[in-house]
Each structure stands twice: as C-alpha cells, then as structure tokens.
C-alpha cells in the first residue's frame, strides 16, 4: 500500500533530527508530530516518549529521521541516520532529507523485514498543526475512544494531533534534555485576558448559581401554586419564556466543566444568545423611555381598545341587519346580536375602569424589557391576548353554539333516516323509533336546519377574527423562537475562525518533480452555515402547529375549538 507521511508545515525549516509521531499501520500512514534535534541520548528520548504515551494515550514513537542540510550533502550523516534506525527500531524507518532551500524533498523507507523489496510509493501531505489541533471534525462519530479511529482515517489523524496537546507545551526555552520543534516551539502562546477570565469565572459562576437557587426556590414555593395563580402562569407566555431563560442560566452557571465539544459549544451559544438578548432588550428599553414614548404608548392604548370595540359593534349591527344581502332569521339574529353587544359594553366599561392605572402598569412592565428582547416580545404577545380577550370569548360562544348545532343536526339526520349511533360498538346501527319520537325529531331537525345559516355566519365571522389574532401571536412567538434557538457563537466562530468547525478536508496538489514523492497540502474544509445552524441549534419549547391543514379544516367545520400554537409539554385538553 502507498505510504502516507503527514508532515507539519512548521517543521519544514527545522534542523536535522529524528521524527516522532504516530504510526497508523492499518492505513499505512505516519503522522509526524515533532522533530527531536541532535544532540540527544536515545535512552532519554525513549523515556520521554513513554511518559508522553502515558499522559496522552497516543502511541507516540520514533518514526524516522529528518535531515536538513543547508550545504552540500554530507556522506557521514546519512550513515549515521541509518544507524539510528537500528537503535529506535521501527518498521518502516522513514528517511526524509531536504537539500538547501529546495522544495522537493527526497523520501525513502528502510524495511528490514520486507517481504516485497519493491519500492512503494510515498505521498507527502503537509498540514497546519495548529489548525488541525484546534479543529473539530463533523459529523462527530460516537466515540468510545478506540473505536472512532477505525471508522475514518481523517478522524484518526485529527484525534492524534488533538490529544497530543501536552507535547506542544514544551518550547525551546524549557531546560530539558530533549529539544523539539513543533508549531509552538518558538514560545507557548497564552493570553492574559483569557487567563484572567478563566480565573474570574469560577467565583462568578458560584455567585450566579447561588442567586439562581434562591430565585428557583421562590418560584417553586407553595404560595405560587394555588389554583388561580398557577392557571395564570400557565397561560402567560412570558412566564414560560422566563422559565426557559432561567434554565439556560442554570446550564451556564453549573460548576461541571463541559466534557465534550458539543456541550462546550452549547454553553457558549447560550451565553452569547443571552448576552445579545439582554443587550437588545436594554437598547429597546432606552429607546422606549427616552422622550417618554412609553407614556405616549399608554395614552394611545385606551383609544385603540375603544376603537376595536366600536368596530366590533359596527360589525354586529351589520350582522343584525342583512349582511352581504343574506336574509337572517330575525329573532335569533337579534338575540345573538344583543348578547354580543352587551358583552362588548361590559368590556368597554372594564377598560375605562382600568384606564387611570394603565400608564403606571405599562411603565413598570416596560422595565422588565431589560431582561431581554424575547421577554419584551412575549409581554407584547400577552398584552395583545389580553386586549383581544373579548374576541376570544365571542369565538368560544360562537363555536360552542355552532358545534352543538352540528352535532344535533347529525344525530337528528340519522334519526330521519332511521339509524342511531351505537356508543358501545362505535358505529351507526339501524333503530326503530316510535312515531312520536320520529315526529319530534323531524320537527327539531327542521328548526335546527333553518337556523343553521345565522349561527354559521356568526361562527364564521368570529372565527376569522380569532384566526387573525392567533396568526399575529404566532408570528411574534416565531420571532422569539428564532432568537432563542439561533446559535450565534457558532455562527461567529464559523465566520472568524472557520477552521475550528470542519466538515472535512481538502487536498491541493503542490508542484511536483519526477522521482520525488507526491506533495499534497491538506487544508480544512469548513462547515457550511446551514449545517452549523442545524448542528448547533438550541432546543426550545418550540411552538409548532400541532394539527395538519386537513385536521384543522375538519375541526373548523365541526366547530371544535382550535388552539394551533400548543406548546410542547402542555397538557392536552
């Protein structure tokens, strides 16, 4: 099989020495991690490698020799390098030599126990050590540590470099018996800000966890679980959003370090999302409170509610007359119309009763926008729900009436044909009725049938209004969901440090020369943006339409109450 040597591009200008790294025999590939320079004592090198193996669980061994002769080739050196092959016995012993500044190196292998003396081909693949170490290969394979490597060649290479982090911590300023060259050998990089943040994060997390435990203790206290309050909390979407954010904060402030890459990314995503949310919320708040816009908003709220109520009254007057030229049953029309008009009258008086307190309530409620833009949007959706409560009531009245009528009609239609619904067998059976049963049944059927258009019209009008309100609320919730679940940290990482999220690799063929091994450059192929969003999406209490279009239409036709945006985990009616 073709021998592949993965050589770090930072070692291209290193002085002569021996190559250490990992040999993957199933793939016949050698991953070079560093170059150990002369002078060295072989015993010490073996000791160092043994220690490294213990720390990193990667089988690091001496792979071969590297000679970088800046002047003409020295004959003695090549024999010396071959002799090294006998000291560090490794099958096959790889010898790479570079002359002067030439780009084309010569590579050969020494096989002592070679069954086929034929020269096998060698491919030299250059890779950027720092990027490969930091990058994370997707799709992530389920890892028990040994098994992942058999599955894919590339993940084996990425794993090897990533787990040898300890090797890269020794730089040339360390006083040790071994002198290495790798990507950090010119000096280990570290940032003061990052170290300070790491130190400060521990007490900050503990403080946050303590505060959160207090808050969640209060929330779980029995006082808030009494029936009217618990019903209210379950209906308001603001409480749900606040609970969701509380959960997020608990994830961030937990003391356990993230074990896997996915957990780390999730924590980072939650943190950035919370930060942006709060920043936008504070921006919104400052915009609202400047020039007292919130006072103006409160002033216009009552006239808007009044206007809506007046429009509804006009609509009802229109229905009570001859809407769209249809002729209604006068008596039922008047009854229904007057009933709904009285309801609106009650609603308007209620609103006027509340009007002196509206501004104050709104002012304090607006302050909670500093908890985040999502909370402000949820409050908006709740205010819309409260202001259009009468539309919801009318819809329920109309739907119940219509539903009753439809059920009555279907049952009496069966009676008309001489059949009955058998509850035990859940099917329609024939039944012989008495004459007076048939007489009354037919009479009722006729009455219900001729009153159907009036009820149906009221039902239609109020259902359309209710659907309008539901659609507006749904759009707001969709926006909240989007802000909640967008993985901003991953997207910014993909934008700025695209090598960290790798979908795979790409190879580029470098200049070739006859007789020399094939030279390839391995670069990281970053994940596409859509794949990033799909992989790292934060889970939410997503509100998705629970019914398909067909079942929704069926429910509308039968008059059953519809709640299209049922939240996951809510108890079904």
């Amino acid at each position: 099989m073709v021998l592949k040597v993965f050589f770090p591009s930072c070692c291209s200008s290193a002085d002569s020495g021996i190559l250490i790294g990992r040999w993957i025999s199933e793939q016949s590939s050698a991953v070079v991690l560093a170059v150990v320079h002369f002078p060295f004592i072989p015993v010490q090198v073996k000791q160092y490698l043994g220690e490294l193996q213990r720390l990193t669980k990667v089988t690091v061994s001496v792979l071969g020799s590297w000679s970088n002769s800046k002047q003409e080739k020295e004959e003695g050196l090549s024999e010396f390098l071959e002799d090294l092959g006998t000291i560090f016995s490794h099958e096959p012993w790889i010898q790479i030599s570079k002359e002067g500044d030439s780009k084309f190196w010569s590579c050969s292998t020494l096989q002592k126990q070679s069954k086929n003396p034929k020269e096998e081909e060698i491919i030299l693949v250059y890779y950027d050590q720092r990027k490969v170490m930091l990058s994370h290969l997707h799709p992530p394979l389920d890892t028990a540590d040994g098994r992942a490597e058999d599955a894919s060649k590339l993940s084996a290479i990425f794993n090897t470099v990533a787990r040898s982090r300890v090797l890269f911590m020794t730089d040339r300023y360390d006083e040790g018996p071994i002198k290495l060259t790798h990507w950090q050998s010119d000096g280990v990089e570290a940032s003061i800000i990052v170290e300070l943040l790491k130190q400060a994060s521990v007490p900050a997390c503990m403080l946050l966890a303590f505060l959160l435990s207090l808050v969640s203790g209060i929330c779980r206290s029995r006082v808030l679980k009494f029936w009217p309050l618990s019903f209210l909390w379950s209906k308001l979407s603001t409480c749900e959003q606040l609970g969701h954010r509380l959960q997020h904060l608990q994830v961030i402030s937990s003391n356990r370090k993230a074990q896997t890459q996915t957990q780390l990314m999730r924590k980072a995503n939650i943190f950035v999302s919370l930060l942006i949310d709060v920043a936008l919320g504070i921006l919104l708040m400052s915009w609202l409170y400047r020039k007292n816009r919130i006072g103006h908003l409160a002033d216009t709220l009552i006239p808007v509610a009044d206007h809506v109520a007046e429009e509804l009254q006009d609509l009802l007057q229109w229905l009570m007359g001859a809407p769209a030229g249809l002729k209604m049953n006068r008596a039922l029309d008047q009854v229904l119309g007057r009933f709904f008009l009285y309801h609106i009258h009650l609603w308007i008086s209620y609103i006027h009763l509340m009007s002196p307190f509206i501004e104050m309530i709104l002012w304090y409620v607006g302050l909670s926008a500093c908890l985040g833009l999502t909370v402000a949007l949820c409050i908006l959706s709740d205010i819309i729900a409260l202001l259009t409560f009468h539309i919801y009531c009318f819809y329920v009245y109309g739907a119940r009436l219509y539903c009753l009528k439809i059920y009555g009609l279907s049952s009496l239609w069966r009676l008309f044909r001489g059949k009955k619904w058998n509850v035990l067998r859940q099917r329609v059976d024939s039944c012989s009725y008495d004459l007076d049963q048939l007489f009354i049944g037919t009479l009722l059927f006729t009455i219900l049938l001729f009153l159907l258009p009036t009820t149906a019209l009221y039902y239609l009008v109020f259902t359309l209004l209710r659907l309008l309100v539901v659609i507006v609320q749904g759009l707001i919730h969709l926006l909240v969901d989007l802000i909640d679940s967008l993985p901003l940290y991953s997207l910014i990482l993909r934008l700025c440090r695209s090598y960290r999220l790798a979908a795979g690799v790409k190879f580029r063929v470098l200049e070739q020369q006859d007789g020399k091994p094939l030279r390839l450059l391995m670069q990281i192929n970053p994940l596409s943006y859509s794949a990033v969003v799909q992989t790292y999406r934060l889970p939410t209490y997503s509100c998705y339409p629970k019914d398909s279009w067909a079942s929704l239409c069926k429910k509308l036709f039968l008059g059953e109450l519809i709640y299209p945006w049922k939240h996951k985990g809510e108890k079904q009616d």
Partner: protein
Amino acid sequence: VALRRRQHSACCRELSVRGPRVRLGALSAATSAAWLAAYAVFALSENSMVLSAAIFITLLGLIIYLHFVKIDQESLLVIGSLGIQVTSSYASGKESTTFIEMGQVKDVVINEAIHMQKVIYYLCILLQDPEDPQGVSEVVPLFQSSKPRLDCLIEVYKSCQEILEQRKTAPQSS
C-alpha cells in the same frame, strides 16, 4: 465542454471538465431588457426610485448568479489510497469541495437515466454501506452542471478505474 487530464504521479490523477462560459451577448441582453422594463415603469409612474431599484436589483442578481449559480469548472482529483476529491468552481472564483475517503468508496460507475424522451449518462461514485459490505449507502453524482457526453465520461471512467484497481492489488496491511 472540454476535458483536461493531469497525471501528477502514479497514484494521483486530476480530471477537470470545463463548462460553457458566461457569454457577453446573453448578459447584455438580460441587462438591457431589465432596464428597458424599468424605464417603461418609470415613464408610467414618474417615480425615480424605480430606476435606482432596477439598477440595484440587476447588480444583486448578477452577483448572486455568478457566485451561487454559474459553475465554470468541475474537477475530480483521485488520489490512490487517500480518497476522491470533487471540486466545483463558480464563475466568481468560489470553490466548493467535498472529499470522500477511499474507505467509503465502493466503486465509480456510469449510470443511465431516462429523462423525458432520451437516455442520459452520468458518472457517479457509489459509497459503501458500513453495515452491509455488499450494499450501497449513497450515490454521489458527478459533473452535474457541465454534463459531459458519453465519450468524455468513458475516458474519466477509465482513468478512475486504473487508480481504483491499485487498491485491490496492493496488500491491505503492512
């Protein structure tokens, strides 16, 4: 549609197919049509925003077309015992690459498909199913925008098979 073959070494071959280029005539015809329509709307509505909107939309549409739609060249890089790399380069210079490891490649074949009234041939890579050694888990079609003809595909097929055969004859472990 032109095929170019490069042999980098005994186990590495690059095959690239170049599609038809963006023609100046078609481009200027499309732009003039868009601007004439915008001018007609402007003459009717007397709103100069229409003209600037038309310019903006034309530029945006051109950039989107060159960067996301128009593929200039598609190439296949076969490296024995490493894998197969499929690259598409767009007219704006963007390149999108996928690399398939050799362990996942079962075979490279020419498939026939019946499209409307004719039979078309396309080259595709069959991926190995990890559970079932005889099964095929996925079919990756190649050269989808340049759509070369059968004679071109046969040459590409022969080149690929020469390299793929090497992995069967070589001993699996050392």
